[in-house]
């Protein structure tokens, strides 16, 4: 773990963060957008920032990506 990693883990980072509830509310849209090739991190930057910071929400995101991919194949 680097000094930067540790500082981030302890103190987070600056930047707009949508929070868990707003991220959850936009998660389906975010995932479908990404899977269809849209740059969702640019369209919904606060959601992208939250997903970088929140281990619980990023894991839910990964699960949703997998489910949608499986459904679409």
């Amino acid at each position, binding site marked *: *773990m680097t000094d930067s990693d540790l500082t981030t883990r302890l*103190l987070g980072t600056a930047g707009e963060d949508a929070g868990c509830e707003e991220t959850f509310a936009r998660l389906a849209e975010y*995932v479908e957008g990404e899977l269809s090739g849209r740059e969702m991190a640019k369209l919904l930057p606060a959601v992208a920032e939250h997903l970088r910071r929140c281990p619980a929400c990023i894991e839910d995101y990964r699960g*949703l990506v997998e489910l*949608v991919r499986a*459904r679409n194949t």
Partner: protein
Amino acid sequence: MNSLLLVRERTQDAPARRQGLDAESQAWIDGLQATGVERARALDRLHDLLLRAARAEAHRRRRLYPEIVGVELDDLCRQAADDAVVAVTSKLDEYRGASRFTTWAYAFAIFEVSVRLRRHAWGRGRIPTADDDATWDRLAERAGTAGAQVESAEFFSALRRAITEELTVRQRQVFVAVALNDVEIDVVADQLSSTRGAIYKVLHDARTKLRRRLEREGHLDQERAR
């Protein structure tokens, strides 16, 4: 399945049509906003869908929770599907058609099963609330292995002081558990009778206070501290 019975009995407002919805999503909405047998069938289909989603997600996370298997795991998935059905139907008015309905509904199943797996894995243990010497020693060890600068005694000492002097009791409780001791946020939410979103907000506010204090004292650059 009492929660589903409650959902079945709930009177629904008049359906609101969403613009540009795909046919399959519209069929889900129509079914869930119908009455009688049609609604009951839609609820059964929704439960089947969300139970499959919960099981798939539990399977995806199996390496994280290898001790939860068999009947116990299936029971957690069923509970998650039950509660996800309740959540979907109670929030149906919030579905605006920005994604397919099933994608939107899957998110509830994933959330419910992930919370249950984390809480179940944590068991009945209490979350750590003390930022004692052992906790700081552990952190210093982690940083030290990479030869990092941040683990300097000065930085940790300043951070520890800031935790005591800047944070409210609630902020300290959450920061110590999540940031210092790696307790899952859903576990903290459960033990503090709160929600993931509320606990994350407490953590976010605590971190902002700490960054600002450390920046004022010259331990962080301004960009990180904002």
